[in-house]
C-alpha cells in the first residue's frame, strides 16, 4: 500500500534526480522554447518535496499540485499540477492506495492533462509520454511498474525525436523540430526515472 509518507519519499527522490537534470532540460527546451523547463520541473518537485503532506492521500496529492502551481505558472507546471489534481480527486478520503489503482490514476491524470492542455495525442508533447505510461502499466504487478514506466517514457522520447512538434511554442519550429527531442517528454522520463534513483 502507498501512503502519503511513501509519496513524500518518492517526491524527495524525484526532486534530487530532476535537480541533476536541470541543465539538460533547459538546453533541450532552449532549442524549441524559452529554455526554462529544467527550472520549472526541478523547482516544482523541490517545492512539492518540501511540502507537509496530510495523511489523506487525495489531499496529499492536492498539496503537490498546489506546490507545483505556486512555484511555476508556466504551462508545463500547470499541466503537471493538473495531473496530480486529477489523481487527487480519485483518492480523496483514503489513507493509502493500492498499487493496483496506479494505472487508473495515471489514466485519469492523462485525460485531465489532455483536456486542460487542449492537446491531442501525437502532437509530440508530454501527453504522448503520459499515454505511453498509462498503457504500459495496464495489468502489471506493482513490482514491475516503475521499470515499465521508465521504458515507456524513454521509448516515447525516441519515437517522437524524428517527428515534428505540433503544439505550443515548439510548433512554430515546424519541420526544424524533427530530430530534436521534445523537452516535455524528456522531462517526464527524468521524473519517472527519479522514482527508481
Amino acid at each position, binding site marked *: 500500500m502507498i501512503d502519503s509518507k511513501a509519496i513524500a519519499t518518492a517526491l524527495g527522490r524525484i526532486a534530487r534526480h530532476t535537480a541533476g537534470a536541470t541543465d539538460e532540460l533547459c538546453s533541450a527546451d532552449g532549442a524549441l522554447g524559452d529554455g526554462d523547463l529544467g527550472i520549472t520541473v526541478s523547482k516544482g518537485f523541490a517545492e512539492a518535496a518540501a511540502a507537509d503532506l496530510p495523511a489523506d492521500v*487525495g*489531499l496529499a496529492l*492536492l498539496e503537490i*499540485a*498546489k506546490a507545483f*502551481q*505556486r512555484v511555476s*505558472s508556466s*504551462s508545463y507546471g*500547470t499541466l503537471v*499540477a*493538473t495531473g496530480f*489534481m486529477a489523481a*487527487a*480527486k480519485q483518492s*480523496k478520503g483514503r489513507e493509502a492506495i493500492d498499487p493496483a489503482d496506479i494505472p487508473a490514476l495515471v489514466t485519469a491524470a492523462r485525460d485531465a492533462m489532455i483536456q*486542460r492542455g487542449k492537446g491531442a495525442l501525437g502532437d509530440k508533447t508530454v501527453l504522448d509520454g503520459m499515454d505511453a505510461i498509462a498503457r504500459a502499466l495496464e495489468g502489471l504487478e506493482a513490482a514491475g511498474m516503475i521499470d515499465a514506466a521508465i521504458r515507456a517514457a524513454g521509448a516515447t522520447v525516441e519515437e517522437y525525436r524524428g517527428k515534428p512538434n505540433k503544439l505550443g511554442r515548439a510548433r512554430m519550429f515546424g519541420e526544424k523540430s524533427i530530430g530534436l527531442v521534445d523537452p516535455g517528454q524528456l522531462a517526464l522520463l527524468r521524473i519517472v526515472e527519479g522514482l527508481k534513483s
Partner: protein
Amino acid sequence: MKKILNNPADYVDEMLEGMVVAHPEIYAQPVRRVIARAGGATAGKVGIVTGGGSGHLPIFTGYVGKGLLDACAIGDVFASPSAEQMAEAIRLADGGAGVLRLYGNYGGDVMNFDMAGEMVEMENDIRTTTVLLTDDVVSAAKEEAEKRRGVAGMVYAFKIAGAAAEAGSDLDEVTRVAQKAADSCRSIGMALTPCTIPQAGKPTFEIDEGEMEMGMGIHGEPGIWRAAIKPADEIADEMMTRLLDDQPLARGDKVSILVNSLGATPAEELYILFRHAKKRLDAAGVEIVMPLVGRYATSMEMTGATITLIKLDDELEGLLKAPAHCAFWTV
C-alpha cells in the same frame, strides 16, 4: 519609461496597498494579491469572484463592492494570478451559497481559474460555476465567438450579476443572468499609442506618429487595420458598424453603451465619440439606457478607446439600474 513608481517589482503591491488604505470601507486585502469586500463575504449570498492581471483599473479589483463583486485575485501587470490566489478569492467570497467565477476569456486565466475551482471543491466543498466574457468582436469570427477575448463588457457583467446576487438569487440563477449579460455584450477597441509594462520597461507595441490601429485588444493584441488616424466621426462610425453587424438591433430595442478610455484618452474625446455613436443609435431607433462614458477598463496609459453595447431586456435593465457602490463607480 516614464512612470511614477518606486521599484517596478513593487508596482502591483504598492498599488493595492494604496487602494485599500484610500478606501478601507470598501476594500480589504486579507491575503496578498487578493482583494475582498471590507466586510467579508455575505452569509447566504452567492459570491462573485473575478481575476486577471493588473494594469486595467478599475478592472478587475476596482469593482469589488456592494452590488458588484465579492473578491478578486490580481496578478502582475497583464499576467494571470496564480490558481491558489484565485482559490483564496473564492474562499473569501463564499457565503455558503456557492461562487460564480466571472472573468475574461484569456488562456492563462481560464487554466488557473479551473484549477482553483477544483481546489475549493476538494478542500472546502464550495460549489462554483463559470461565465466567461467574450465580447471583443474583432478577436475571432462570429462562427468562433467562444474564442473571443473578454474586454470592457466585463463591467456590465459584473454589475448585472452583482445585482442578481445582492437580490438573493441562487447560484444557478446568478450564473444564468451573468451568461445572459455576457452574451448580450459586444465591444471593439482602437488605439493611438501603446503602454509600458513597468517590469518590461518598454512599450507593448510600436505605432507611428499619426497612425491609429482599429480593433486592438486591451493588452496591445493586434487589431484589424492600421493606417493614418481618421476623424472621430469616422472612427465612431466604423466601430458602431462592426458592433451592429455582429449583433443587429431592431427599432425599439434598448441598449446601454459604454464609451471607455484605455487610459490616456481624455473624457473630452470620449464625448466626441459618444456624440456620434448616439446619432447612429438614434437613427436606428434604438433607445439608450444609462450611458457610461469614462475610464472603466484601461490598459495602463494606452491612448485609445473602446465602445461596448449591451442589448437589454427588462430583466437586464432592472439589474443594471440596481444600486451598487465601489470606489470607481456608484449606481
